[in-house]
């Protein structure tokens, strides 16, 4: 995705209402690009009058921000307690081994980013995997295989 300084500036201006809206602005940029481009952090430092080091500390403290571009498909495995006791570690293991990446990483072909989340609050359906915002409940190792197959098949066609 192309990074547009004007676009980032517009996001910052929209979000920069009142005091302490730095995090809100970063959230909006993250939402737009799926990560925080370095251009955005430099511009935010200038617009908010906050040292670059402080923005860097915020960007690396919160789980919602990423400094690296994410893959085309984002897989989030819920590691909440209910999902844990119902077997989410096995599901995560399986996805890790199939994709060959660890949580937080993006596959070398930039197709997948694997993440873990701490409870999505849909505990009755655990274990849960979210694929690009779409929830799949009652996951098992077999269903995880199926999920990955479906995505890959769609990619091959495309």
């Amino acid at each position, binding site marked *: 995705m192309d990074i547009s300084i004007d676009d980032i500036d517009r996001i910052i201006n929209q979000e920069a209402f009142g*005091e302490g809206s730095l*995090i809100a602005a970063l959230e909006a940029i993250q939402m737009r690009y799926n990560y925080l481009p370095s251009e955005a952090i430099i511009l935010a430092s200038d617009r908010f009058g906050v040292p670059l080091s402080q923005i860097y500390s915020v960007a690396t403290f919160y789980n919602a921000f990423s400094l690296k571009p994410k893959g085309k498909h984002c897989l989030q495995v819920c590691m909440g307690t209910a999902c844990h*006791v119902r077997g989410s570690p096995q599901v995560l293991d*399986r996805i890790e081994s199939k994709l060959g990446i660890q949580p937080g990483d993006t596959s070398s072909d930039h197709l997948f980013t694997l993440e873990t989340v701490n409870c999505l609050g849909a*505990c009755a*359906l655990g274990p849960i995997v979210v694929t690009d915002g779409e929830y799949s409940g009652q996951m098992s190792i*077999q269903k995880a295989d199926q999920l990955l197959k479906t995505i890959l098949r769609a990619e091959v066609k495309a």
Partner: protein
Amino acid sequence: MNRLQTLEEFDQWQLARQQEYNPDRPVITVCGGTGCRVYGSEKVWEAFRSELTRQGADGDLYYDVKVTGCHGFCERGPLVVIRPQGIFYSHVKVEDVPEIVSETILGSRTIERLLYVDPVSGEKIIHEHDVPFYTHQKRLILEKNGNLDPAEISEYIAGGGYSALAAVLRSWTPEQVISAVKSSGLRGRGGAGFSTGVKWSLCAANVLKTGDGYIVCNADEGDPGAYMDRSVMEGNPHSVIEGMLIGAYAMGVHQGFVYIRAEYPLAVKNLRLAIQQAEELGLLGEDILHSGFDFKLSVRLGAGAFVCGEETALIASIEGRIGEPRPRPPYPAESGLWGKPTNINNVKTWAAVPIIIRHGAEWYARIGTEKSKGTLIFSVVGKINNTGLVEVPMGITLRELIFDIGGGIPRGKAFKAAQIGGPSGGCLPAEHLNVKMDYESLTSLGAIVGSGGLVVADEDTCMVDFARYFMTFTQQESCGKCVPCRIGTKAMLETLTRICNGEGQPDDLEYLEELGSHIRASSLCALGQTSPNPVLSTLRYFREEYEAHIYEKRCPARVCKPLITYRIDVERCTGCMVCLRNCSGGAIQGEKGQPHSIDPEHCTRCGVCRNLCKFDAVLVA
């Protein structure tokens, strides 16, 4: 919507809405909570819309279809209730909708297969109010969740909403409000259990001195396994806004924030819409209902840090900094957001306030036990039949909660423990099933009410692994500011991991206890101080499981991978090749029709073979 100018206009408008929303009118409610949406409730809702038109039931009968907030019985979703009769259908699929319309709506006949079957008596239950999951509850905060459209402020108002605010603005002094909240006995529902009225009076006194302050709703529900705050925000956001308005009036504050998790997109959306509607109607903003009272409410999204549920970290985050806690005192009531007096309460605490004002403090104080008043909401999850949100009066026993409401443990397994209060809480074993669910009783046994997360573990749950799970969580979420939490949780986690891997040493248990007590005593904030609880409570009640891992190199629940082996029972194996084809490690050998075998060298202990085997031929030891 026109802005309501005065209290009289509000009364008239409310009366008009009450006449419009006859509670006996026919309406189909479809649960639109996050859980039911995952099951596909949105499609069910759309199907009802089109099917009613197609079969002509929308004309003569004026059936309305409504998406509501979470009903709480997430296990059985998507849930559909046909009102006013209260006919309760669960696990409703799009394909069921035409039949529901033709049979139940037009034909007044119930559809047997969609009814809930009581697992204890085996009886089919027709009406929502007869389902045991609901009959044992006392729903105050969640009362309206099942029949209110959260996107319509008029429905909330027709049901008596904002009357508590109107009453307060009309004739209560701020002191009277605080005194009512004090005498109701309401205590902070975020977990700490501090008296809400006392907290308000401290903040109010400081606001009086400095002339300004803030209130905050803490909706940064980060406890894995707890989701009641989200459900209240999704299903009844105006109850929180009304509570905050009353609190702001009582404390003399004119600006408030809701700090909510970004991981809850539906709750954020419903809350933002609710704020916008309240502003349009003149219930938020300047000179509310011509009372001279101003209040502005803004939403701030959390960016995924568990520690931000701690009030000083939350303040730092709203101010745009990293969410690191700071030492208290000064407490936020003295110096909070931007150095001003600030009062922070949990979602449920705010939502309880209008109920207290409407029904009276004495009425509220009659619910619960001597020191713990009112109701508590638990999210009952894990190895339990009826996963869901339950609201019960304080003082109900753990047994009632798990067996009467929760329906017991699935597949006839034995109850092992209830983990209450999340990563800050503790595990209670079967011998304490009769404990009363209130602040004091739970604390005395090493658990806490906390956020209300209640995770049930059965015989297949390894308590050492369970403790390690929580320690992994707190270790990851430790902000790293203070040494006991940053390094102490790491050291505890390393020890627990060694034990799970079969490398535990005899003195590990004493080491965990000693380290735990130091972390508890010396951490900066509650995240660190309470982080050893899951370990210490399992050591207290399940010590023999730790000892089996250390001395016998054995995991009694057969969970810890380095301590278990998979093998195939040659007597039972039919050689169907299903496990062989699905084995991720390529560890299974054998010919078709001949018993297979597992090569332990290549076995990853993933358990796929065991899940797939139809002949129970895969054994774990």
